[in-house]
């Protein structure tokens, strides 16, 4: 088992200010960045704030930016860096910082609450839902989301434009809208809730310019752009911008 001394730069500070602090720290075979952050806490910076939980890429807590790229610290192996490379770790740069590597991700919970939840179908009780696998394949992909908010962090719509946070839900919650709209038993339409139209009007789907950074950083490998955002854009076009679909739906409605 070999070990070496790695050079780290870790952002330290709070909402009033802060900066990158240099560290030299031992690295052993098989370790990930979160192991090194923990070693820093144990040996050199006992008050270093970091949020973490499962160390297995499933809780989505240890999101940070490593050499400028949004990643989970627990899933970033030290072996991807050369021994000479300085590894820079900063908090997520889209959300307000609380302290060191911990940010306030409350924006995401606000946006989550704005998405109307699943509408149960009339006449079916708990335990009576029956669905075909091919009908739930699409929503199930989106259920893999661990809510690490790396996609929200990397999305330039809010990362580079703070003022868009009010109107734009971000890829994670637009994916939630897509998940519900594709759900075979969601009865939102029967209650007058048009999720396709709401995606554009209420959740800011039009802000997305499908540059795919959300897909690039997703640690679960969800094809957010291709399977959620673009299909949702096409569904919004059906509702708002396609005169033929509009005409067809009018004729169908009149004949029925």
């Amino acid at each position, binding site marked *: 088992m070999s070990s070496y001394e790695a050079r780290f730069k870790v*952002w*330290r*500070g709070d*909402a*009033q*200010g*802060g*900066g*990158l*602090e240099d560290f030299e720290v031992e690295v052993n075979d098989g370790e990930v960045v979160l192991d090194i952050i923990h070693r820093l806490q144990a040996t050199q910076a*006992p008050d270093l704030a970091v949020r973490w939980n499962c160390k297995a890429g499933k809780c989505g807590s240890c999101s940070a*930016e490593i*050499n*400028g*790229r*949004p990643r989970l610290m627990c899933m970033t192996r030290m072996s991807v860096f050369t021994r000479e*490379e300085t590894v*820079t770790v*900063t908090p997520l*740069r*889209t*959300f*307000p*910082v609380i302290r060191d590597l911990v*940010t306030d991700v409350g924006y995401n919970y606000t946006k989550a609450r704005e998405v109307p939840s699943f509408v149960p179908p009339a006449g079916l009780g708990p335990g009576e839902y029956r669905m*075909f696998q*091919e*009908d739930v394949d699409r929503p199930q992909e989106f259920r893999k989301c661990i809510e690490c908010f790396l996609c929200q962090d*990397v999305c*330039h*719509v809010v*990362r*580079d*434009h*703070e*003022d*868009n946070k009010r109107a734009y839900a971000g890829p994670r919650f637009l994916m939630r809208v897509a998940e519900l*709209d*594709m*759900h075979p038993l969601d009865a939102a339409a029967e209650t007058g809730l048009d999720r396709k139209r709401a995606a554009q009007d209420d959740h*800011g789907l*039009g*802000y*997305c*310019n*499908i*540059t*795919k*950074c959300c897909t690039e*950083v997703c640690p679960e490998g969800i094809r957010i752009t*291709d399977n959620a955002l673009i*299909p949702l854009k*096409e*569904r*919004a*076009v*059906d509702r*708002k*911008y*396609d005169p033929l679909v509009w005409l067809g739906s009018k004729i169908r409605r009149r004949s029925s």
Partner: protein
Amino acid sequence: MATGTEPPDTEPHTLRGGVRSPARAAITAPHLRTDRWWLAPAATTAGLLAFVVYSTWRAFANTHYYAAPYVSPFYSPCLARNCETMQAGPNYDLFGGWWVISPAIIILIFPLGFRLTCYYYRKAYYRGFWASPPACAVAEPHKKYTGETRFPLILQNVHRYFFYAAILVAGVLTYDTVLAFRDQHYRWGHMGLGTLVFLLNIVLIWAYTISCHSCRHIVGGKLKHFSKHPVRYRFWQFVSRLNARHMQLAWASLFSVALADFYVFLVASGAFDDPRFF
């Protein structure tokens, strides 16, 4: 309380936007990426620019676009009176004699619109030309951003109509490929190197067109219950498999259409003799 581990060089917050907004971690650098993040947008920009320069020259040149039995895909179908005569070819005097500039302009608007509004090309040129963003987690230079919420970018939503037009254009190019199984005297049952180039091109054009996200939506993606539409579900699965390669097909078909045009240019200008297989 001093802990002895305070950062030595504290950066005070500056009142600027984006990643330098007041409440966010005080880091002045617009990004901290250490990899060659600029390579992909630079290569994309160079590739697209090269095609724009080449296609603009060829579209306005109005020469060397027909060498029996091959017609350049840039000039097919040819819909003005000033088109060259192509025996049984895709020329039809729809626009009459008043159209005096290159007839390529009439038809190129459709494949151009299809590619301009394509979900892959949007990503490519938003990143490469407009730096919005230049790469992931690299700050964009613009102060305001409204995305595709207002004019003119809201027009990107017409992509499906350009898809319908692209189907028709691909149909005409398929007809051209069938015509390429003639010789220069219009006798059937022959094949040359140009026929192979046309075959490669039409396969890639169809693959790119069918793999379109709008096509994926139309054939089945819009459905809520695949189980009630098994045939459309099969179509959707097929298009989805192609769709996963949409970027590669976009580039391959862009290259092949330029290659097919350049081949016709070489043969028509006399710079190259089309090798005949039989």
